[in-house]
């Protein structure tokens, strides 16, 4: 009864290309966004913003990036954290070394673009190398990034290990002073991240429903056929790398600026790449919304689990045990999910929705 589709028809191709063909979806999305923008900052405590919402947004951005590359274009990557690293460091350096008028979003875009270019460089081998062989290239990116910033302390402003990010970096065109708002407050950071992530998600969505997106998927599904019908396979791959790494870069920047508030190399170790890979797998390869579902689950799962552990067993176990059990369940979850539904959470959600739409009928 929720999905009332009767009487929804389009009288032009523009209309037929709407983001949300079913009115209900449109309303749901609208309400959700309004809630996120206006209600959440008011009701959410700093803890919630700082420890849940902001990191989820940051991760989500990177996950989306990886999904564009692996899910949409079928190019496997283990270098996500590496690219995030580039993004974060460049943003910091741009903010640090550029004049007053420079501001964070712009810096992120610039840094993201640079990261994108680096991504393209590491993506070049994909011209000749296919499938798992490509892992080597992305891994190279991962380790190269870490090594690079470790060996050139210049980029860390000659700090040891980490630098704390100064608050004045957050000020946008002096809005802060003008209205006496604390732009470094969690609310501000949250809204900033939300804005950026929403914009990027929308961009990705548009991209995927236009010819570029179709080219991505074509290359993923059958690259010979793609080249035969005149899709520039190489360019498409490179573009995928660029866009993906742009997103990862921005994600990295958000991760440091909005979430950790410190910049350091150890943030972007190999296992971060895996974390994000899981987010994408669990969320659903090839689904934009899925990237975020996955992020929420993967990020919240250990927290919930340890919380449940403490709550139920009154801290009977030490954290190490809980972590390990979490890991075990986690591994099982992934395998189970792949067996039950290779499409991930996104696919599960779609089947559920389909069920709603066709109820009382099976199909």
């Amino acid at each position, binding site marked *: 009864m929720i999905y009332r589709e009767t009487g929804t028809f389009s009288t032009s191709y523009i209309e037929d290309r709407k983001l949300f063909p079913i009115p209900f979806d449109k309303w749901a999305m609208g309400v959700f966004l309004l809630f996120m923008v206006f209600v959440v900052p008011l009701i959410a405590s700093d803890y919630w913003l700082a420890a849940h919402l902001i990191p989820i947004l940051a991760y989500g951005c990177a996950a989306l990036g990886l999904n564009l590359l692996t899910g949409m274009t079928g190019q496997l990557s283990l270098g996500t954290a590496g690219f995030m690293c580039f993004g974060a460091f460049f943003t910091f350096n741009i903010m640090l070394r550029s004049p007053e008028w420079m501001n964070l979003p712009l810096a992120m875009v610039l840094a993201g673009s640079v990261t994108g270019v680096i991504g393209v460089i590491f993506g070049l081998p994909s011209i000749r190398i296919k499938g*798992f062989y490509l*892992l080597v290239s992305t891994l190279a990116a991962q380790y190269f990034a870490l090594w690079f910033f470790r060996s050139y302390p210049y980029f860390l402003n000659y700090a040891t290990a980490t630098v704390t990010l100064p608050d004045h970096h957050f000020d946008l065109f002096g809005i802060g002073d003008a209205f006496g708002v604390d732009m470094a407050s969690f609310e501000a950071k949250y809204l900033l991240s939300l804005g950026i992530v929403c914009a990027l998600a929308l961009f990705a969505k548009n991209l995927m429903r236009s010819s570029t997106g179709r080219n991505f998927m074509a290359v993923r599904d059958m690259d010979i*056929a793609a080249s035969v019908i005149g899709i520039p396979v190489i360019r498409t791959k490179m573009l995928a790398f660029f866009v993906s790494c742009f997103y990862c870069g921005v994600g990295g920047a958000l991760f440091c600026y909005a979430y950790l508030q410190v910049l350091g190399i150890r943030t972007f170790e190999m296992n971060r790449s895996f974390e994000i890979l899981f987010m994408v797998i669990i969320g659903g390869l090839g689904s934009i919304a899925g990237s975020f579902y996955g992020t929420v689950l993967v990020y919240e799962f250990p927290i919930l689990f340890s919380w449940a552990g403490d709550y139920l067993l009154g801290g009977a176990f030490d954290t190490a045990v809980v972590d390990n059990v979490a890991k075990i369940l986690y*591994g099982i979850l992934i*395998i189970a999910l*792949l067996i039950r539904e290779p499409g991930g959470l996104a696919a599960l959600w779609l089947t559920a929705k389909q069920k709603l739409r066709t109820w009382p009928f099976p199909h």
Partner: protein
Amino acid sequence: MDFDWVFFIELIVGGLMSGVMYSLVAIGFVLIYKSSGIFNFAQGTMLLFAALTFVKLTEGSVNFWVALAVTMATMVVFGILVERFMMRPLANQSLLSLFMATVGLAILIEGMSQYIWDSAIHGLQLADFLDLALLDPVNMTVFVVDYIDWLDILISKFDVFATIVAGTMILVLAVFFQKTRTGMSLRAVSDDHLAAMAVGIPLSRVWALVWAVTGIIALIAGLLWAERVSVSFTLVEAVLKALPVILIGGLTSIPGAIVGGLIIGVGEKMGEIYLGDLMGVQGIETWFSYFIALVFLLFKPSGLFGLKAIERV
């Protein structure tokens, strides 16, 4: 300055040795990839698991051989379980999701091994066992670093030992593949699952077998690695190290794995010392091996020994 030849040769030998270590890990990969086209990411954690199990057993003052036997048994059981609960249900799914599954498996094992045993770092005095187990009769400790006069270089006997082990293992496997019936069917499976099933090869059994064998290899590799880098999470990284090795070798060939191992081993050392000096930075070896691999792959996209597929449309 004049070129230090001895040092150079030592470097090469050392490189070769670590190459052997890599190939030890790599073989496990190749085995599974050959038989089921799966890129088994869990290899590293399997190493860890095996080594850890063994260590804890021996720490529990179990006799060396018993411990070894028990661990082997464990790995076999493990292999069977994996086949039953992971491979079979995933039988006809995309290679990507199979790969993902192994990644999941990796976490599972990691968590498990650290849950069952603890996550502390263990040193493994394999040496002691080896001494009293097999080398006392000859009365010498493995770890005496020997001086080979005709080459006048220093060389670690343990590396030699490792090399021997690796060599024998490769031989065994080669024989296994070429001669035994199971081995043959295994190769058949790798070539074409459906066809193999059609001629009545029990796919599931073959896979179970492969995973079991891989488990055993993991054990051996694990022990040898553990000797150099203590038994801890770093073992998992060994896999990532082995990655370029396999890829150079070309995923499907065991000799490939060996050659790849040697190339990377040597290349890394060379890069570290000479290129490092050139650039005036340390630690390039963290990524240098991948670059070597890349260079090779750019010229031979499916590895040195990998089979080139003709694209039929």
